């Protein structure tokens, strides 16, 4: 390994070391999962982790980019998963399997799918015990898969939540829903939540930062 050059900023070096430590935990390397560019600097999904979301569109957003890159994904327990919306947000339906109604076997079905696909979206029907969650986490790390939980999950790596949303395009009996400004908060452990504002969905084009557009305007003005 070559020695780090002195020119590198110190915090970058620190971050690299932290990444390496995190990667070496449990003896299994934790590979970064490609994350949607709109969320990229807030959140880095890694294999072996469980991430909580609280809205369907956030779940689809996390599935979309890896799915486009060729990863298989599975959706367990979400009978009301909007297929057309998922396709609009970029989920490749040809590499997606649904188990809409796993009943009481939801944990076993999820475990079977975690073995073979790289992303699993799970909507637990009730509370998840800490024991079940830790066993699933061990399995996730072993199989290098990522779990996105639409609901609560004890010991999750991060919680991505929709703080507020405001729809535009609709008025008092006229118009139609066109786009939404959504404030997304990423809570990791006990650290303060990091927020960003997204067009989710945007009126046209892909999901993107609201601020990026504002920055562009500011730069022009």
């Amino acid at each position: 390994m070559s020695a780090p050059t002195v020119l590198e900023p110190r915090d970058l070096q620190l971050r690299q070391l932290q990444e390496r430590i995190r990667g070496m935990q449990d003896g299994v390397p934790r590979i970064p999962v490609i994350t949607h560019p709109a969320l990229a600097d807030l959140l880095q999904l890694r294999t072996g982790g469980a991430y909580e979301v609280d809205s369907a569109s956030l779940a689809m957003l996390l599935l979309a980019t890896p799915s486009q890159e060729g990863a298989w994904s599975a959706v367990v327990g979400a009978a009301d998963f909007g297929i057309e919306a998922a396709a609009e947000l970029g989920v490749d339906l040809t590499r997606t399997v649904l188990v809409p109604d796993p009943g009481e076997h939801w944990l076993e079905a999820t475990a079977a799918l975690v073995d073979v696909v790289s992303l699993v979206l799970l909507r637990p029907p009730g509370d998840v015990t800490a024991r079940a969650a830790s066993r699933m986490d061990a399995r996730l790390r072993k199989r290098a898969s990522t779990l996105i939980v639409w609901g609560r999950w004890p010991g999750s790596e991060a919680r991505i939540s929709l703080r507020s949303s405001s729809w535009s395009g609709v008025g008092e009996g006229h118009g139609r829903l066109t786009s939404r400004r959504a404030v997304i908060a990423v809570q990791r452990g006990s650290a303060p939540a990091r927020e960003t504002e997204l067009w989710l969905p945007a009126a046209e084009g892909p999901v993107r930062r609201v601020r990026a557009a504002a920055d562009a305007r500011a730069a022009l003005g």
Partner: protein
Amino acid sequence: MRVLVVWCPDWPVVAALSDGEVADGEVAAATGPVAPAAVVTRSAVVACNTRARDHGVRRGMRRRDAQSRCPELLLLDDNPDRDVRAFEPVLAAVEALRPGVAPLRPGLLAIRAPGRFYGGEEHAAALIAERLVAIGVWDVRIGIADDLFSAEQAARRAEVQGWRVIVPEGSAAFLSDLPVEVLETGSDDGGGDLVGLLQRLGLRHLGDLAALPARDVLTRFGAYGAKVHRLARGVDPVQPATRTPPPDLVTEVVFEPPLASVEAICFSVRQQAEEFVARLGERGLVSTAVRIEAEADDVRRSLLSSRTWVHSRWFGAGDVVDRVHWQLQATPAGVLVGAPVGLVRFVPETVEPAAAHADGLWGGGTDDRVDRGVARVQAMLGYDAVVVPVRQGGRSPADRQAHVPWGERPTGLRPPDLPWPGRVPSPAPTRVFAEPWATSVVGAAGQPVVVTDRGAVSCVPARFHSGSTAGWQPIDSWAGPWPVDEQWWESSTGSRPAARFQIVGVDGRAWLMRCDDRGWWTEASYD
């Protein structure tokens, strides 16, 4: 080598009439030998029978013209697959008499003429004609000659159920009297152009063409002309390409004594399932669709269950056994106990070369691992618990999506790319409820909001209450009513017009709701 050609004239008509796709009344009227019938595409006549020809119907004629010449003409849809399928029994019947059948096209086949085996060529022709009439093909004509072209022309000049034998070395003499128009029939490669040219050059008969020096014909007409020249001289060297009889790949498992328990059946068929897959594998084939049939052990051997299973990749032995398990479990238990299974049969419905399904160097197609994981979930939850999401056309969000069980091919889906006027505009809702939630929507004074007959709301909706939200939620903004004008002919949809609304609560969550005469329903959520 002598060639025997069997010609069944107007085969598309014969196939269509024997297929039973036409309504029974029509068949009854048409199966008599005198009813005029024609097979038509959307615009033109593809084939017609003798009676229709007597009325002046011709190949290539427009459908309207054909009907005007013969108003009682029975019109049959064109279906080349059906023609091929219906010709298969004819091939099999001839193959039983002499192997090495070369199917030329539906209605026309060639074999090497049997010499002395059936007591001479004419006896062989008589035998073939008799066999084909026995399987219900009434109009059979047979020609025997030195080469394929002459034999076909001889068959076309034979009587119904008759034959015409061109003596050895007699092809040239036989062909020389034929008009050049015979080059048109059955040739797809521009024979018509050449016929027109020959006629304008004053060459009326094949003999005139044959009399020209081969070198001059090649110079003037090119390679195709040279080929036709060879045909006309009766020295066509092309031998019919014979087919190998299709192997019998159906596997049967007989239970002695008959078994009533699904587990016992699955255990017993495992070895035969392995043999079934191995036998396909010996021929370099894999099966992607298998029909599994279970028969009872009674005198009539009644079919207990029959179902075709499709695999997303191809069937291994374990997959076949799984399918037997699922199929027999799904059969009502009472039936199974009442009639123990005496026989299970595997019929490979679709076989494909194994090379087409080989694993690519970098993977590809359905991932093998995914298949295995899904199979485990299927074993846990049942066959249709794992589905593939697909989009389809429709107006409501629930209509615009469909679930196809893993491994099955989607059928009967509406095309999603059509405009579908009246559909809910995009963005699509992220949650679509299979069962809409009952909802109440009221105005500012608490009066229920309804949609009037003229498609307007009775008052401005002010707050709503649905299954998901606790308590009443004030409405921030709303859009609608968008009238739902679907299936008004169904009595169950009610008298009042239904309408859809997009409603945004003050918490920023948006919903798609529907109002009909039974009340308000939350159909989907923009979560």
